[in-house]
């Protein structure tokens, strides 16, 4: 189920005075089961990139291969691609429309042509996975709170049982608690199902703790593509493109400058605490 992005270029508003190159010669590979963070400043092309992966935007030039097949082939089944590469948009709660949460989540599976029973089973499973309490299933989606709406919307995509799940800024506009809960559930989902997950975000802090790999986008090109700890080594360059490494990176670098023997590649608070304690113990 791997996705290969091969020299993809995309220009917004081609042949108008406002033409903008949103993606410039992007080459990437997403193997099975990886949890990938795509980070970039506003306008770096990260949202544009993920919309290519399920065929919503067509590259101006270049190719995308899903499972070894070119998705721009004439007889390629886009609908099938969209069921296998699930995309949760930014502020997905704006897409809710049904009379109750449960039927809204059924919309996706029903579009796949599944029978009612199977669609409902999947919807139920998806709603459980995003942690929405049972008593909300038959409420109008417009009566839910912001965080609950978002969960319902994510369930709507999850119910299609995609092999790859892309989430575009799933935590935008949520409070810190809601953010941690959603990210935690996404991680759990990944470990339980082995799904490939692409998490788009502009916050390193958000993704550092969860992902296996970070892709940093800047002005439409890929700037870094590596393990989190290796990407964070470039914390000074990251600042230049309007991003920042997690706070622990800064703290550890400062400690190292002061002569403390800490491992600066720690990415989470727990790891940082360990290395600081170790350094102190040695003294």
């Amino acid at each position, binding site marked *: 189920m791997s996705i290969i992005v091969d020299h993809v270029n995309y220009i917004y*508003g081609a042949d108008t*005075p406002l033409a903008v190159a949103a993606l410039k010669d992007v080459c990437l590979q997403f193997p099975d089961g990886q949890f990938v963070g795509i980070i970039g400043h506003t306008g770096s092309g990260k949202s544009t990139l993920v919309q290519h992966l399920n065929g*919503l935007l067509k590259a101006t030039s270049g190719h995308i291969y899903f499972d070894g097949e070119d998705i721009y082939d004439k007889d390629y089944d886009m609908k099938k691609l969209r069921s296998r590469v699930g*995309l949760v*948009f930014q502020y997905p709660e*704006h*897409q809710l429309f049904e009379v109750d949460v449960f039927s809204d989540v059924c*919309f996706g599976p029903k*579009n*796949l042509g599944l029978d009612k029973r199977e669609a409902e089973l999947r919807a139920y499973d998806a709603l459980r996975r995003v942690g929405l309490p049972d008593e909300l299933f038959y409420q109008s989606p417009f009566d839910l709170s912001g965080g609950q709406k978002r969960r319902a919307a994510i369930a709507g995509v999850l119910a299609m049982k995609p092999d790859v799940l892309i989430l575009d800024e799933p935590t935008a506009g949520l409070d810190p608690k809601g953010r941690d809960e959603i990210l935690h559930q996404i991680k759990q989902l990944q470990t339980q199902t082995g799904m490939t997950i692409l998490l788009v975000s502009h916050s390193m802090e958000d993704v550092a703790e969860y992902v296996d790999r970070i892709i940093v986008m800047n002005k439409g090109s890929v700037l870094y593509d590596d393990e989190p700890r290796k990407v964070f080594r470039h914390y000074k360059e990251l600042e230049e493109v309007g991003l920042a490494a997690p706070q622990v990176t800064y703290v550890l670098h400062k400690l190292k400058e002061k002569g403390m023997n800490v491992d600066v590649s720690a990415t989470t608070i727990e790891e940082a605490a360990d290395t600081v304690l170790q350094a102190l113990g040695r003294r």
Partner: protein
Amino acid sequence: MLRDITLGQYYQTESVIHRLDPRVKLGGTLLFIISLFLFDHFAGYVVAVAFLGIVIRLSHVPFRFMVKGMKAIVFLLILTVTFNLFLTPGRELVSFWKLTITWEGLALAITMAVRLTILIIGSSVMTLTTTPNNLTDGMEKMLKPLKLFRIPVHEVAMMMSIALRFIPILLEETDKIMKAQLARGADFESGNIFKRAKAMVPLLVPLFVSAFHRANDLALAMESRCYRGGEGRTKMKPLVYQKRDGLAYLCIVLYLALSITAGRLVWMWI
């Protein structure tokens, strides 16, 4: 997906036409359109086309943007031409089956087609070179005398500018929701008309919800800035006539004079 709609879309560039006062452009366009319906001789159209050509050149807007506006009226154009061609009585030109084309019909059909084309292109020059805000500003100021008849000119102008401002926002929103539903396997294109109408529900419901939200937010934002209608309201950039606007008016008058006399002149010359 929906980005290609040019209805009343502004083309940003730098030109004399762009800088003109919107009142000049509104008045000029109106006079231009009226003049098109007064000609009784082809010479008038030659003058009109020449005048329009010069204005287009001065506006620095690529010609294909003007033609884009034509797409909307292709159907109307074909209908008008067909009816005029076949249903005008007069001297017979060709005749087949039950249909006859007359010389008069042919002349009338060509005149109508030319008239409509110039009309549409002429008004797209105005909308392409004037921002919607400027346009409503100009309209508000021009229609101010109507206040005497208790017509709420300011309110109507405000509604218009808000509506115009919301067109691109709602288009973008539609695009976003459409993509989100496509990502959930929605199908907007296949099936018969009933199926397609039903497929619009997942698009329309969220769109209406968000439009009402936006309207509510905007009303709140306006009220919290003490908006209470046009009474005593001043403008940040009031419209003031410049020298070039006077010149432009002069050009329009010259055009009118020329186009009206053109027919007579050609007549005399022959």
